[in-house]
Every structure is written in structure tokens, then in C-alpha cells.
């Protein structure tokens, strides 16, 4: 848990996902596999053994036919700020500083060559965002050819997770530096692969603290909420939905409690 270096511009990258738009097509998942060299096996149907940095869930309102409603919910790593800024659930528990909260970007990093696979971070993460390499990754035939040099393939026995495509941030920062504007990374210069891939533009990505970025306004929408907000994990991923049952399905409530958002209030 590094202290904030005073000379670096502080950003706080985050995501706003419009659940009213998400069609559940899984383009984000596939684009992420391709972007981040995520391995695959012939058997991927046991989801708790499958490596996905972003996973799209299907939620139903539980009503019988034909009043049933479905909502798709993509779940990347929430890049939690934690109880106090930087005290993410996973970062504080890693015994070997293999995962860290990057103060200049608000992104939770993961160093694969540092991780020795104790999986404490997985126990700490309420979102199951962290995945363990139970197997040696194998790319059959000549599939190693399509691996990207921007993201190192992981080895067996380490934990991996979504990094908000941090390598794209590095690329954008390098570009900005080369063009003589070291601190000025434009909104469109750094976008995650899933954001770009979403064919229905449900994902918006940017600096949550920058009023010029789209996410700044969206996260303050009355339809905005975060997943399991009551755990005080302080996620950097926001969701939008106009449906009350979706808000309710995103957090735990005691019987007498109500989510902050209600359709009646809106109407």
C-alpha cells in the first residue's frame, strides 16, 4: 500500500455500466480473453474453475411467466477503494504485496511473478473477481501466435484478475509523454477492451473524479448504484438501472429495508 506520490497526477478510473443497455451478448468477455491472453481449456462449464476477468450474469425478477424480466450484469473487478482509500479488501490481506492499490490511477494491480498462490485475496474478495490458475495454461496447436506481448501470460498457481487493461493506460501515458503532454491523457485515449467491445455501448469508462469525463456525471445519476455497497468495499464500478428489483438484487437488505432507489419515487 503505497503512499500517494505527490508529483503524479491523481486519477481515479472507474466504470459505469448501463444495465438497461446490456444485452448479455458476452462480447466484453470475449474481447477481454483476447486482450488479456486469458487461457481456456476444453472444459469451461464449471464456472468456479473458469478464468474470466469480466463475467456477465443473468438476473431474473423471480416473477412467473409472462411477467418475468431479465437483466444482464457484467461483473469485472470492482477495483475497490476500500474502507479507507487504498485499503481494498484484497490488497490489505496479500502477504507478499503481489497485489497493490495504485494511488495514481485507483487501479488494483496484480503481479503474477510475485504471487505465490496463497489465495487469501480470493477469500477476501466478495465479488469473486479473482481467479486462480488451477492448471498450466496451454494454447493448443499454434494458438500461442495470437498472444499479446502487452500482457504476460500467467503460470499455474497464481491469482489473476481484471486490471482495467492497465497496459492500455501505460500505452496512453507513453503516447501522451511522447507528444509532450505527460499528464494529459484524453478520455478516449484510455478505454478498457470491454468498454470498446460492448456492441451496445453499455459500458462507459473514465476518470470518476474528472468532471469532463462521461463517467463523472453518470455515476451521480439517480439510477446509479454499486454492487454490495453495504460492505463498504467502495467499488469503482457503478451500474445504472431504472428497475427497482435490479437495485434490490445488487445488495443485501433486511426484510424491512429498501434500496435507496425506488420506482415509485421516480414516478
Amino acid at each position, binding site marked *: 500500500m503505497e503512499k500517494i506520490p505527490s508529483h503524479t497526477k491523481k486519477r481515479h478510473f472507474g466504470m459505469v455500466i448501463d444495465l438497461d443497455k446490456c444485452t448479455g451478448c458476452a462480447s466484453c468477455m470475449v474481447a477481454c480473453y483476447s486482450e488479456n491472453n486469458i487461457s481456456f481449456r476444453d472444459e469451461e462449464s464449471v464456472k468456479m474453475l473458469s478464468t474470466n476477468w469480466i463475467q456477465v450474469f443473468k438476473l431474473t425478477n423471480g416473477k412467473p411467466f409472462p411477467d418475468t424480466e431479465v437483466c444482464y450484469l457484467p461483473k469485472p473487478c470492482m477495483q475497490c477503494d476500500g474502507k479507507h482509500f487504498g485499503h481494498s479488501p484484497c490488497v490489505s*490481506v496479500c*502477504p507478499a504485496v503481489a497485489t497493490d492499490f495504485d494511488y495514481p490511477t485507483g487501479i488494483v494491480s496484480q503481479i503474477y511473478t510475485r504471487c505465490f*498462490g496463497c489465495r*487469501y485475496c480470493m477469500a477476501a474478495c466478495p465479488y469473486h473477481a479473482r481467479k486462480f490458475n488451477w492448471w498450466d495454461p496451454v494454447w493448443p496447436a499454434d494458438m500461442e501466435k495470437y498472444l499479446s506481448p502487452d500482457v504476460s501470460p500467467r503460470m*499455474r*498457481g497464481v491469482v489473476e484478475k481484471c486490471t482495467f487493461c492497465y497496459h492500455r493506460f501505460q500505452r496512453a501515458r507513453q503516447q501522451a509523454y511522447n507528444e509532450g503532454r505527460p499528464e494529459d491523457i484524453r478520455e478516449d485515449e484510455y478505454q478498457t477492451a470491454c468498454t470498446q467491445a460492448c456492441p451496445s455501448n453499455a459500458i462507459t469508462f473514465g476518470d470518476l473524479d474528472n468532471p469532463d469525463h462521461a463517467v463523472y456525471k453518470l455515476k451521480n445519476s439517480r439510477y446509479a448504484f454499486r454492487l454490495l455497497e453495504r460492505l463498504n468495499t467502495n467499488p469503482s464500478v457503478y451500474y445504472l438501472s431504472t428497475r427497482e428489483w435490479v437495485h434490490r438484487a445488487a445488495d443485501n437488505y433486511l426484510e424491512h429495508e429498501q434500496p435507496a432507489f425506488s420506482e415509485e419515487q421516480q414516478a
Partner: protein
Amino acid sequence: MTTPAIPEGVKRCGSRQFLLWLGVAALVVLWGVYAMYRIWFYGLNQTNMNNAYGFALWIWADLAVIALGGGAFFSGFLAYIIGLKNVKNIINFAVILGVVCYTSALLILGLDVGQPLRGWFIFWHANVHSMLTEVAFCLSVYLGVLIIEFIPVLLENPKIQKVRFFHHLSHNMHEIMAVFAATGVFLSFFHQGSLGGVPGVLYGRPFAFREGLFVWPWTFFLFTWSAAAVGPLFTASMCRLTEAITRKKLVKDDVYHLLAKISGWMLLTYIIAKSIDTIYWATVTAPSMGFALMDFYSNNPLYNIWILVAEIAVCGFLPALILITRKGRENKKLLFGAAILAIIGLLINRWVMVLQVMAAPLMPFQEEWFMYSPAWTEVATSILPIAYGIILISLAYRYLPLFPQEKELNPGN
């Protein structure tokens, strides 16, 4: 001139019988070693763990053996710091049990991590904020202390005693054993606590999370306290088991009674604290995160509220009350019945604080509990320490004067 390997004045079984006994245990060890081979060479896919169960049987086994091995530190504390002379009659046995438990814990940790060859990163790149770092450091240094405590006992072997240097070494170590023991107690207090901190700090896991004091969640103190309470009972029970197997009285009853009395009060205070903690957690901590108590005990095939009742009432208050009454602890059946209950209570506590934490679903749209049953590899490697313990204790019992009172209690030899 030959020196007998077996200590003077005690009787041990014949070599053939002894080897047969060791052989049976060795078979179990071999099974475990084969599982170890599978795990180290093929990876953790050989287990039934998954991304929902980063922590599973092994972490439970770790927590359990360390808590039970806590008998060593607490007996040491009583014998060397408080100065209860009577406890010294069982301290050698407590130490060797501790060595077994702690080496087993390290072995299991070595299996559990995905990259054992990088295990030393936990020291080299330590994150001092992580409970696991604290565990790793204190645990390994404390294992050193345990070995130091064990060395003098080892040196008591008649053959080794013949070497003058070792004779002196054993004497000198005995002399300053209190210093080592004190350091051990200090280290133990922290790593037992940190093991409690491991689940307690998980604020993303409402079932495990506890508020606390400074950086330490209440589970920190509860784990230390419960290990101190139950550890000596485990030592006593194992000692009794050794007596039963060897068909010999090895320790006088007043040693058992003393340990039982102390443990009884420790257990009672612990279980009261645990109850207060549970009530506070169930009424304040968990509801603030949107969970009612019964959310953690319903809609699943295994974890129901009776587990909590069993842990606190049946395996907490009941044995505590038996042990604090003279009549209770002086009745052998009640004494060891209570000890076994207390041990079960401790095992349940460590189980739920690891596995139920993983099992409880957090996202309302994922109603299903994550259930898990260990693979044979996990079971084999978790049983391995028991067989290994049997071998080590058998060897120690045969060749070392573990029980100072043995000669006195078995004058016939």
C-alpha cells in the same frame, strides 16, 4: 561397550512390535506422500478447491493443528513463566506435540500455496499489514522456539548424552529455557491471534468480519484465548491416549486436574467472550451489511443454526462447566469427555470461520451456496500429519525420557 538407546529404568515393547506399529503409520504417510506428489507435480487442480473456495480443508487443518498445538505454548507459559512446577511433568510431551502440529502446519501450507517454490516471498516481500504475514513470521520463528525446546529432550537420549558437549548443551538450554519459552509465548500469542485475524479482517465477508481493537478484530483475541484454553486439553487427551496405548500410567492425575482446572476457566471465559462477540456480530455487524443471522444458517444443505448451538453450548459452556467443578474434572470419564467436546468445539469454530465463510453467498442474485467436499488428495494430506505425529511421538516415547514421572509411576521395571 554399548549404550542402550532406550532410556534407563523404563520398559518398552519389542523391536518387532514397534516396527509393525510404525509400519502401519508409515503406510498412511505414504498415501499422503503420494497425494503430495500429485499436488506438487500436477498442481492444485488435483484438489476440489475452486475460485469460490480459495481456502478450504487445508486452511482449516492448518488452523486446527495450530490451535491444538497451542498446548505447547500455553503449557510452556504455565510451566516457565507462571512457574507451575507440576506442568513440567507433561511439558516435554506438549512440546513434541507442538513440533508435530507446527511442522504439519508448515507442510500443509507448502501444499496449499500455488507456487511453493516462491513461498519465501512471504518473508522477503512481506506485507506487514497482512495477517498472513504475521502468521508466517511468528509461526516459523515459533517453530524454531519449539525445536529449541525440544532439543534438550532429544539430547536426553542416553546415547547422545555420552557426547559431553551435548550433555552440557542440554543442561545449559534447560537453564535458560524460560527465556525461550517467554519469547515463544509472545510469538504464539501473535500468530494464534493473527490466525483469528485472517477471517476477522475480511470485511467483504460478513460471516467472518468482526470489529475489533486497533488493527485486531475480536477474532484475534478469541482465537488466542481458545487455543490457550483447548490446547492443553488436547495435550492432556493425547497424553491419556498414549497411556491407553502403552497401557501405562505416565503422568500423575493431579497434572491432569491442574490442566483441566485452568483450561476450564479459560474455556468458560472464552465462551462467554465468544457469545458476546456472536451476539454483537449477529445484531449489529452483520445487519449493518444487510444480513440477518438466519441468512447464514438457511437455504443450504449443511450449515444450520445447530452448528452455532453445538459450538457455543454443547462444545463450549458444557465442557467449561464440567471442568471448573472439582467433581467433574476428577471423574476421568467426565474430564476427557469434556476435553473431547472442547476440542470438537474448537474444530467446529475453525471450520466455520474458514469454510462457512466461503460457502455463504453474498450476491442476492446468486442464491446458491457454494458447497465443497474435499478431494482424496486433500484428505490424504490432512491425515498424513496424524500418522506422522504417531511416528514421531512413538519414536520420542521409545527413545527419550518424555515423562519424568514414568519411572516413579511404573516401579516394576
